[in-house]
Every structure is written in structure tokens, then in C-alpha cells.
């Protein structure tokens, strides 16, 4: 926490002096390439790929460890979560993950990793220090999206065929409530204060805002883009700015990122990106948003202040996950 705050502060200070195009602080962007079994590493100042590292088979979800020194990688076809030391770029060990891990979320204290096992309808919770399975929870068919509330009380999982958000009480290690959402919920994210849970439904074409206290859907947002048929609008990745201003939603084969006003829930803008935009990550200073485009095999770089796409960076085949280290 303190490290992040420090980075953020220095980022803000530095930001005043530099032109808009240059990143305020140098950061490193990691992108998993699902069909290449590699990780592309991008330097934020040059926006060029500096290295491509071989990882496990079918890498999808990636996330940084709490201290930012390691990267967790879902190697779906190896049935493992790999842990990469970011200094040496070496895989140092695997975590037991259960079958076919696709997405995961780290508890706020960085100790527990909640992994959705798509093939066998469970969520596996791994203690990253002991590298042992802490517990498993039965959920619906094809568990996919995972998020942990900022207070660490809730872990939520979305199941794609059951079409529900399953609320796992972390202390009780059990599902205590379920919220029905639109078809094929794929991704979910808590707001910074934990009061809302945002959930995208790929086939339903909607974004649901769920009130954490009542676990009821508070608002359902639909998207409409001129010249794009409704059935191509398939929301997936979500990123929320810490200041509570914007929610970004990747719209898959609609090839746009929607900008949602996080206060009024109105859709402010649609940014044209690459083909089949999938996941996104904000830079530590939240001035930039990076979005992976699966079909076109590149990463779109978006200026958050101007809401403009600055550049696209060519990476490997089927880029899936993205994480940014300050």
C-alpha cells in the first residue's frame, strides 16, 4: 500500500512537468499471449516491446503480487498458476491451481489467490506463501470472473453458464448468496470503496452495477454504437479509476472501449481500439489505459485524460491479460 501510494505521489508530481504523450513515470507493461505461450514486455516510455518471454501453455489471466516483485500467470493448459520473478523474468515456481485456471484475484493482503477453475465448477483458493490449496468452493457452471472486495470479506465469482455472481464469504469459506445477472458474465470488479460490484455479461451485452450491501442489481447499463449491430457488443474487461470518475468497459468484437461515468452511470464515449478488445489495465498514475486486442494481436494505449487512443503496440498472438508495474 505505502509503496503504491509513494509511486502514485511521485507520478502525480512528475506529471506536471512532462508533455501528455510521455508517461509520467516509467512503468512496465506485461501482456499474456494466449496462442503464443509467451509474455510480451512493453516499456511505457518508448511504447515498444522490449522482451518476449516464454511461459506456460495458454497464458490468460495475469496479476502482480502485492509487492509488485512477482507476476502470477494462469497457464490454463498446464493447469497451473506460474509465478514469475520480474527481475530475472524466470518462472520460479508453480502454484497448485486446480484445472484450467483462467482468471483469478488476489486478496488485499496479497496472501490468498482466488482462482476460477472453468472446467470443474469450483473456485480454488491458494495460499501464495505456503503454496498450498487453502480451500475450494463449489460454484456454478464455468466459473470465470473473480474479484475480492477491498476489505477482504467477499470473494465473488461469476459463472458463465449459470449466469450468476456467487458471493463467497471468505471467513466462512462458503457461498452465502447468489445474484442473477445477464447471460455469460465474464468479468467482475469492485469499486475502490467496495460499495459496488461491476459485472459484465458478454452475451447479454450488459454491465450490471451491484450494490455490495444488498447484493442486488442496482443498475443495468446497455451499450449502443452507431454502425455496430447489438449482438456484436459483448462486454468483457472492466477497469475503474481510483478517483471514482470513470469505468472503462472493453466491448469485445465491437472493437470499442466504453467510457462510463462512474457517478451517473451514463456512457460518456466509445473509443475505437483493435479487434476483439479483451482485458485492460491502468498505469499506476492512471493516466493511461492499456487494452489487449485478441484478434488484431496488439495493445491499444489510451490517454485517460483526453479519452483518446494514442497508439497500438504489436504483441503476440491473441493477447489476453495485461498488468502494469510502476
Amino acid at each position: 500500500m505505502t509503496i503504491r501510494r509513494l509511486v502514485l505521489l511521485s507520478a502525480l508530481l512528475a506529471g506536471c512537468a512532462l508533455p501528455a504523450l510521455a508517461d509520467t513515470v516509467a512503468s512496465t507493461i506485461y501482456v499474456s499471449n494466449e496462442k503464443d505461450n509467451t509474455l510480451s514486455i512493453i516499456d511505457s516510455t518508448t511504447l515498444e516491446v522490449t522482451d518476449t518471454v516464454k511461459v506456460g501453455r495458454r497464458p490468460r489471466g495475469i496479476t502482480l503480487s502485492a509487492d509488485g516483485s512477482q507476476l502470477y500467470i494462469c497457464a490454463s493448459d498446464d493447469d497451473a498458476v506460474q509465478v514469475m520473478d520480474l527481475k530475472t523474468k524466470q518462472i520460479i515456481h508453480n502454484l497448485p491451481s486446480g484445472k484450467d485456471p483462467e482468471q483469478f484475484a488476489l486478496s488485499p493482503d496479497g496472501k490468498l489467490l482466488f482462482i476460477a477453475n472453468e472446467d470443474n465448477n469450483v473456485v480454488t483458493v491458494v495460499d501464495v506463501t505456503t503454496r498450498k490449496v487453502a480451500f475450494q468452493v463449489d460454484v456454478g457452471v464455468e466459473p470465470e470472473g473473480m474479484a475480492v472486495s477491498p476489505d477482504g470479506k467477499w470473494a465473488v465469482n461469476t459463472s458463465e453458464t449459470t449466469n450468476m455472481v456467487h458471493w463467497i464469504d471468505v471467513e466462512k469459506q462458503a457461498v452465502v448468496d447468489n445474484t442473477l445477472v445477464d447471460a455469460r458474465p465474464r468479468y467482475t470488479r469492485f469499486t475502490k470503496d467496495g460499495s459496488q460490484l461491476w459485472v459484465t455479461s458478454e452475451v447479454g451485452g450488459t454491465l450490471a452495477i451491484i450494490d455490495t450491501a444488498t447484493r442486488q442489481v442496482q443498475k443495468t447499463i446497455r451499450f449502443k454504437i452507431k454502425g455496430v449491430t447489438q449482438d456484436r457488443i459483448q462486454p468483457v474487461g472492466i477497469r475503474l479509476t481510483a478517483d471514482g470518475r470513470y469505468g472503462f468497459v472493453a466491448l469485445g468484437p465491437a472493437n470499442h472501449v466504453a467510457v462510463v461515468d462512474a457517478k451517473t452511470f451514463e456512457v460518456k464515449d466509445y473509443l475505437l481500439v483493435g479487434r476483439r478488445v479483451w482485458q485492460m489495465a491502468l498505469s499506476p498514475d492512471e493516466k493511461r489505459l492499456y487494452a489487449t486486442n485478441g484478434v488484431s494481436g496488439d495493445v491499444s494505449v489510451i490517454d485517460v485524460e483526453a479519452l483518446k487512443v494514442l497508439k497500438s503496440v504489436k504483441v503476440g498472438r491473441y493477447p489476453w491479460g495485461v498488468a502494469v508495474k510502476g
Partner: protein
Amino acid sequence: MRFIPLVSSLLAGWLLATPAAFSQDLATVRIAYLTQATERPPALSNLDSPPDDEGIAGARQAISDNDTTGRFLHQKFELETVTVPEDGDPTQALRELAAKGQRIVVLDLPGEAPGTLARLPEAANLLLFDAGSTDDSLRNALCAPNLLHTMPNRAMLADALAQYLAVKRWTKWFLVVGTRPEDKLYAAAIKRAAKRFGAEVVEEKAWSEDHDARRTAQAELPVFTQGKRYDVLVVADEVGDFGDYVMYRTWDPRPVAGTQGLVPTNWHRTHESWGAAQLQSRFRSAFGRNMLPRDQAVWAAVRAVGEAATRTRSTDPAALMAYIKGPDFTLAGFKGVPLSFRPWDGQLRQPILLAADRSLVSVSPQEGFLHPKTELDTLGYDQPETGCRPR
């Protein structure tokens, strides 16, 4: 067969794990599955023997999917399966199911049988799913208000292929038609699609049974495929009698499409996008084989009932039927877009895969074939063309 112990052991394990959840009563949705044993005609190509459980395995997979969801809503799904012997009467079987109180029946029957069954007085209050017949007649003159189709019809398949060939600008077709009545229906759909998408059947030949293709294919097929200049050879051989022997043996070097070669289909093992990989893999681990088109059509029908039960939070058949036929119903079918039933003929709109043996070549509708409502309605019989009387 191997699935039943699996499910029961899963259920048993779960019962032990969460007794609290089960102490409340589970409401049950009953679904029946009706099929008939058919004699497979002898075919020249006998490489793959069709599995005995095609169709029924799809029902079992969907029941398992429905139950996993159902346990969060205290719902459970019960499947009754009936296989009528070859010389048996599906009509009688449906009457018996109705008498036993079954209201939702998935028909895995070929030809016009679903249309006949839907017209029985006993079927008036039933909801029937046609998951086995591609007959265009069932979506036209033989349509019925109590009959929905999860299997795409021949016109949809042919249109899907025609759109792709139009995109490729392979618009001159050499059509080879098998001897069986269904081959002629397939050929008719191909000719209709040619007209719709600006292609031309420049040559049409009937394959007759006196060609001994296995022994002398090298000699027979080159001569047989001589004719006018064409871009692609379209073969209509639904049972797979000779179609596989056409490829690489044509007089001119031309690709083969239709019932063999590049095949338009509702499901194929090469399909893995939009989460299909997960369905394929859980099907494979449950049944030890790949999911086939009839499995998928039956799966979609049983899942439609499950989806209705989830959305309405009800197990009342009347409520489920109303929801499935209503405007709000959509099904996530691993095809990248929501699937729904056309109100005019009860056909499930769905993208059609264009698959070669080991690669998924494309998915139709193709980009650029526009439609005011949904591009999926560029495949098959759209509302203005339907021969189904207002329901």
C-alpha cells in the same frame, strides 16, 4: 451409460457436503427425450461409426449443466428418455409420455416426424423441441405453434455456405446429388441459396449407386466431374455414402463443400471460440467422445428449459413455455451471440459453423450480409419468406 454413475456420485457427494441446502425441497422440472432407433444404410465411407448415444448425451450434459445452476435456486431437472425401436411408433410413445404428465418433450427424430407429432391432439398442451430434423418443411407448411427447432434447417446450412462462397467469389457451383430423398432436399436448399446470394449452379449431376467409387474412384470420379467450368463442387450426400471420395479426385483442381469437405453445421469439434472449448471439454470428459451436431441441438433444447427456469425462478411448465416463446428469451449457446427463437416459425436463430475436418474455416453470417434486425436472419427463412401460417 458411464455418465449416470458420475452424476449420482457427484450428487451424493454434494448431498453429504451441504445437507442444509438439501433439507429444503427441490422443485423439479421434468423433460422427456424421444428418439427412434434407425438402421444406418450401408455406406462406402465407413471410417467413423456413429456413436449410439448421439443426441441423448447432449440431453444428459444439459441436465447436468441445468442442475449445477439449479442447486442455487433449489431447482432440479429430471430427464426421461424413450428410444422407440426401428419398427415402433413414435406417435404412441409421445401419447404415453403425455399421459404420464410430461409437458416438455425433446424430439430427436428425422424427417417430417416432428410435424406429425406436433399435430396430435395429445400434443396440444405440450412444448416440443425438434432437435433432430433439418427439414425445411417443418419451418414452413408443417410448422406448429407447439413446435420449436433447435436444429438448424437445410436452408440455414445452405445459406451459411453460400454466403461464405460469395465472399470468396466462388460463385459457379458444380452440384453432385446423392440418391436418397434427403439428398434431393439438401440440393434444393443449395439451389435456393445460390439464387439468394448470387451464385449459379452451372452443372448438376446425380450420383448413382452403380459407381464403385471405393475400388475405382480414381477412374470414376475424374470422368464424373468433367463438365462446365466451375469454382467449387458442392456435394449433397447426407448419410456420407460417397461424398468423402470426391475430394482430390475431381477432374479440375477444385475444392469440395456441402455435406462433405467444407461443411456448414451447427456444431463441430474444431469450434472452440466463445467458451465453446469448455463445453467441448466437459462433454468429452463425460462421454469419452466429441460432441456431435445432434448432441448440440438436444443440449440447446434442454438448456433452453433450464434457462427459462432460472430466469422465471419457476418450475411450472406453463410458465417455462411462455417464457421460452416470449420476446425476452435468449440462450447463450457458445456461438458468440445470443440465440433466440424466431416468432414466425419457431426456429432457433444461430450462427452456422463452416468446418473442414481439422479446422474451423469460418462462421456465418458473413460480415457484410446486412439485416435490419439481426444478421442471423440472413440465414434460412426470414419473416417475409416464411411459409408458416400466422400462429
